[in-house]
Each structure stands twice: as structure tokens, then as C-alpha cells.
């Protein structure tokens, strides 16, 4: 973005004021061919790890849906097709960064030190699912776009405390329509906050397609009005998302402020297990989207580099299935939380004036046990 200095008259009384351009980052095309030079960070080990994480993410996702379908878990938002986005963020985060997720970031959670059984607990209707993980990370956020203001606050706290870390927040394309999104980008520009906002543009806000959510040709350009840097990436390319995060970190380290990253993905699954996407999109469209999905292209790239083969694939799939089975067993066998737990963390210091409510619950429990 730059100001245009020459006062060229373009129409009566008008002169150019400003022009801007946007970049798009992509390394691998949909077949796994390199369209840009392989970046330095993408060592053999990095590529294999990213792939393994993405496969684990998908295996976990399939199992979670099966648990919901069999009545063993509540409503669940699938991350099918979103694996590159989540895993790149998880790999791009540093230990002391503040991660502020929305609700479709299972891949990132997997790498943030959360137990996968905690994710099942959360979607299984148990508050203990958000009790663990890095102490500074936010729990899953359901009210759309509200989490961005929290991330901006966390970024301001990092700046006030002279901590050289990032606040990293995720949001869907639908969330970019909300006021909280604009208010957060705006303050990030005004205060030069160390904030990275990643938009998972998976083309749908439940049933509403991207092109009738917003008239702008890209969501990345919403950064321009806020005075921060915006970039678009192929969100099915794990390297592209990771590269954008690296650049965002560098920008923040150099005190150049916040970054908005629009990752183009496609939500291959329903919005949640309570949704039926066939009501609003065609099979042909979904079939086409499968051609661009993130795991296959990375697998192709690994095969081409000689880093992966059928035998390794079989072994890894088995390991993932075994791991997820263990996670599910942990989830299913955990002792139930107490009825009183709803009071335990309402306030840090229990207000004695509320004791009557404990008595009311005790009476209710007596009745329920009889």
C-alpha cells in the first residue's frame, strides 16, 4: 500500500490518493507440484511431521463424528479439509504465544499440548475439556468473532509487559462480517499490536456462501482499512499458511504491527454434526473441492521427494487409529463431574450470601436419588 504523491487529475476535481496491492502465498499446487521454490523451513523432517499431524487430525475427526453419531458425544464441528490450516498454525505457534481459537481448530489444539480427550470432553458437554493446556491460551470460542477482541487485548498485554510474543487468533469467513472483527483490526492498527488474525475462509458461514457474505473480492483486503498488513494464502497448502505466520511474526518482531491472513480452504464436511450441507450445496461442488484437499497434495509431494511410501502410510494410519482409540477410551472412562462443580468455579471466593443455592441443589439431589 502506498500513497500516490503525484496529483494526476483522473476526473474533474479528482486526483489519485492511494493504491494498494495484495500478495498470495502458495508453494504446492493441488497435485502436490511445487509452484514456488521449496522454502528453507520445509526440511524433510518438517514436511513429514506436518503430514503426520494432518493425518492424525483427520483420523481424530472421523472418530469424533462417529462418537456423535452413536450418541456418545454432543454436536461437533468437523475439521475435514481444514487440516493444513490448523496444523500450520499449531506448528507456527511458539510456546509462550497466546493462542485464541475459534471452534474448528482441532489441528492446532492437537499441537498446543491439549489432550485430544479434552476436545472430546468439551464437545461431550463437560467443562473440564477446557481445564488444561497452556495457561495463557484461550478456550474454544463459540460466539462468532468475539475472540478477536480478546486476542487484541492479549496482544496489548504482551506489549505492555514487554513480552516478545504473539497473540494468534482464528476465525471463519462468516466472522469477518461482524463488528468485533472490524473493531479489533482497527485497534490493532492504531496500537501496532503483535497480533496475527487468521481467517479460515472455508467458503461457508453455515449455509451462506462467501460471495453473498461480503462484496469485497478478498477478505484479506479488510486489513487495508485498518492500516495493517493483509495477505491471502492457499489454506490447503500447509507451507503457505506456515510461511504467512513466519512473516507475520517477523513483522511483529520489527514493531510493524499486526497481520491479517486470509486462508482459502473448503469445508468438506457439514458445518457441524447438526447440519446437512446437501441442503445448500451441490455434490459436484464438493467433488471439485476434494480435488484441492490438503492432505493428498502433501502426500504427493512427499512421495515425489521419496520421503513417504505406501508402507509408511499404512503404519502411520494404524498408529493414529490406535492413538485415537486410546484417547476415546480415556474420554469414555473418565469419572463424571459432580453436580456441585457448577458452583466450584463460579467465583474464586465463594460468596457466602449464595449458600442457599447449595442447599437447594442438595435437596434436588436427594430427590433425584430417590
Amino acid at each position, binding site marked *: 500500500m502506498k500513497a500516490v504523491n503525484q496529483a494526476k487529475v483522473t476526473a474533474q476535481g479528482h486526483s489519485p490518493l492511494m493504491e494498494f496491492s495484495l500478495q498470495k502465498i502458495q508453494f504446492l499446487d493441488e497435485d502436490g507440484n511445487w509452484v514456488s521454490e521449496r522454502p528453507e523451513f520445509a526440511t524433510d523432517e518438517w514436511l513429514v511431521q506436518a503430514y503426520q499431524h494432518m493425518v492424525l487430525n483427520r483420523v481424530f475427526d472421523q472418530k469424533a463424528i462417529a462418537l456423535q453419531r452413536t450418541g456418545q458425544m454432543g454436536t461437533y464441528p468437523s475439521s475435514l479439509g481444514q487440516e493444513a490450516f490448523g496444523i500450520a498454525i499449531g506448528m507456527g505457534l511458539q510456546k509462550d504465544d497466546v493462542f485464541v481459537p475459534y471452534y474448528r481448530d482441532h489441528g492446532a489444539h492437537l499441537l498446543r499440548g491439549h489432550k485430544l480427550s479434552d476436545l472430546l470432553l468439551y464437545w461431550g458437554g463437560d467443562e473440564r475439556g477446557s481445564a488444561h*493446556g497452556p495457561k495463557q491460551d484461550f478456550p474454544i470460542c463459540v*460466539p462468532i468473532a468475539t475472540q478477536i477482541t480478546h486476542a487484541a487485548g*492479549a496482544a496489548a498485554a504482551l506489549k505492555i*509487559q514487554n513480552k516478545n510474543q504473539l497473540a494468534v487468533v482464528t476465525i471463519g469467513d462468516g466472522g469477518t462480517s461482524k*463488528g*468485533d472483527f472490524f*473493531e479489533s483490526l482497527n*485497534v490493532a492498527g*492504531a496500537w501496532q499490536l503483535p497480533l496475527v488474525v487468521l481467517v479460515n475462509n472455508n467458503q461457508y458461514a453455515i449455509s451462506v456462501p462467501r460471495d453473498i457474505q461480503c462484496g469485497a473480492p478478498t477478505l484479506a483486503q479488510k486489513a487495508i482499512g485498518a492500516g495493517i498488513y493483509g495477505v491471502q494464502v492457499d489454506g490447503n497448502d500447509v507451507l503457505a499458511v506456515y510461511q504467512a505466520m513466519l512473516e507475520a511474526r517477523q513483522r511483529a518482531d520489527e514493531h510493524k504491527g499486526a497481520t491479517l491472513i486470509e486462508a482459502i480452504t473448503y469445508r468438506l464436511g457439514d458445518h457441524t454434526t447438526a447440519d446437512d450441507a446437501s441442503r445448500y450445496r451441490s455434490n459436484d461442488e464438493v467433488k471439485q473441492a476434494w480435488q484441492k484437499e490438503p492432505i493428498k497434495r502433501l502426500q504427493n509431494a512427499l512421495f515425489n521427494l521419496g520421503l513417504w511410501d505406501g508402507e509408511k502410510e499404512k503404519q502411520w494410519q494404524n498408529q493414529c487409529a490406535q492413538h485415537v482409540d486410546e484417547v476415546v477410551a480415556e474420554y469414555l472412562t473418565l469419572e463424571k463431574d459432580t453436580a456441585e462443580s457448577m458452583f466450584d468455579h463460579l*467465583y474464586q471466593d465463594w460468596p457466602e450470601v449464595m449458600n442457599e443455592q447449595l442447599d437447594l441443589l442438595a435437596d434436588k439431589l436427594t430427590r433425584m436419588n430417590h
Partner: protein
Amino acid sequence: MAAVNQVTSAEQMDSVLLEAVNLALHYEMEHDESVVVLGEDVGTNGGVFRATSGLKEKFGFKRVMDTPLAEALIAGLSVGMATQGLKPVAEIQFMGFIFPAFEHLFCHAARMRNRTRGRMSCPMVLRAPYGGGIHAPEHHSESTEALIAHTPGIRVVIPSSPARAYGLLLAAIRDPDPVVFLEPKRIYRGAKQSIINNGEALPLDTCFTLRTGTDVTLISWGACIADTLQAADALAEKGISAEVIDVATIKPLDMRTMITSVVNTGRCVIVHEAARSFAVGAEIAAQVSEKCFLNLLAPVQRVTGFDTHMPYFKNEHFYLPNSADIVAAVEKCFKEA
């Protein structure tokens, strides 16, 4: 409007309520580095009422932040800061503009400790001037404390004097959970009170009995306390001894103090500026009827605003409860006994 006195020492001083707020903010920012102040015009301007006057000069722009004009953002930033080791004290310029902040208060600040099972908390204060009686424009005079008090996990605190403003604001900032601190602006520059600036907080979750009496319990908070005390004086002249209770913490309610008093007096009159129905007074009346119905010598009375919009200022005195209304309600208690 006169400028607020600049705070220079930790000694005793005569202050109006607004100065007491300013004094408490100065004290706590000086003694706790994690306290930060944010809001619209709170920095160089010192707040439109001057409650944050002198803070930016003393503690710098990093701890005293002029925010963009966006109330949802102010509350959301506070949630973000509070979870990361800071204690934000945010100002919403007028309570009439607090509504965009509700989502962050209700869906996040109030729930954060519970939904993370104590891993994360929101020790934040949201300050807002509230209530009518200062001839302000539309949307500047409402009393909507009940909307907030209905939400679990949050405290709502309302001072009624300079000393209680000082002590309760300190307590609110030190509280490990979110507190909405509503400042009755009708008495911002009312009676002065001697304040010892020693950082001593008052307890939350506790009513203050301002005057003891035997015939009737008058329960109120905020600016209406002044009218209630005036009514108590008038009643004394009529030979009626009134106990006056300042609720102070609206959520959670210290019903024990109120019930003990009503059991003694047998009569209860609740006074508030907010609209009549579904208000905090309705909750108190319900609990009085649950807990000491058989001790009542007369039905509980409420002196309140109407279930109307707050009139623009030319007519606001028709809406606001006054001491004559309170006296009339008490007399009704005796007629119906």
C-alpha cells in the same frame, strides 16, 4: 464542571464521590503495576467526568489507554488483558452505551473461570456512570443494573457516598473476578466526605446499614440513598423510626442483612431509580416474602421509576423517586398494617 482536585498525597482529604473514584484509581495504580486503565477519553482528557484525571500524566500511556470509540472492543480488550496477568479498569463513558459490551461481559468475562475450571479468570472492572438527574441528553440517564445482575459469575457494585466509592472501588479492582462498578452520577459532585487515602478497601457482598431503626426497613442503593436518608429524617419527625440499608453489592445480594432487619421492623420499603418490573427491587421483595413473610406487618412496598423509557431531562423529575414518594410508601405500610 469544576476540575477534580489533583491527588498529591496519601493523606486525609475532603472529596466528592468523583474525586474518591479518582483517588482510588491513583492509589491502586501506584501500588499494583498490573492495574491498567482504558476507555474513551480516559487518557489526556482524564475522562468526560474527569474520573481518570491525572492518571496518564502519572502512569504513562502504556497503562492509561485512550481506546478507539468502540464499547464492545473496550470490554473485549479487557477480557484479553485480564486473562494475561493485567487488572484492567475500563470505563464505559455512560451506562447507556454499555450494551455492545454485554456480549463480552456475559459470554466471556462472567464465564471464563467456570468454563476453564479455574485455569483462566477475568479480574476486570467495568466502570460506568449511571442514572438520571443531571439533565443529560437521551441515552445518558438510564439505570439498567438489573440486566447485568441477572448474569451469573459477575459482581455488580454501586457506591452511594465518597467513602464507599473509594473503598468499594479498591475492593472491586482487587477482586479476582469481574466487577461492574456503577457510579451514580447524580451524586458525583454531591456532598463531600472525609477520605483517608490509605488503600483500605470495603467488603463486597455486604450491605451497609447506614441508620438503625425499629419501625420500617428502607432498602436502596446509589443516588437514591440520599433521598432515602432524607425520607428517614422526615419519618423521624413523624415518630417513625426507619432503618436504612445501602445494598452496595447488587449481585450477589446480601439478603441476610436485609432479612434480619425486616424481621426486626416488620416493614420493608425498597427504593430504586430503575424501572419497576423485573428490577433488583423485585428480587429483594421476592426473597423477603420467601424468607420472612410471617414477620411482615404490611405488604412490601416499592418506590421506583416507571416501566417507561426514561423521560428526556425536562420531565425526568416526574420519573425519579424522591423523598416524598418514600415517605408516602412508608405511610402506606402503616395504614395497611
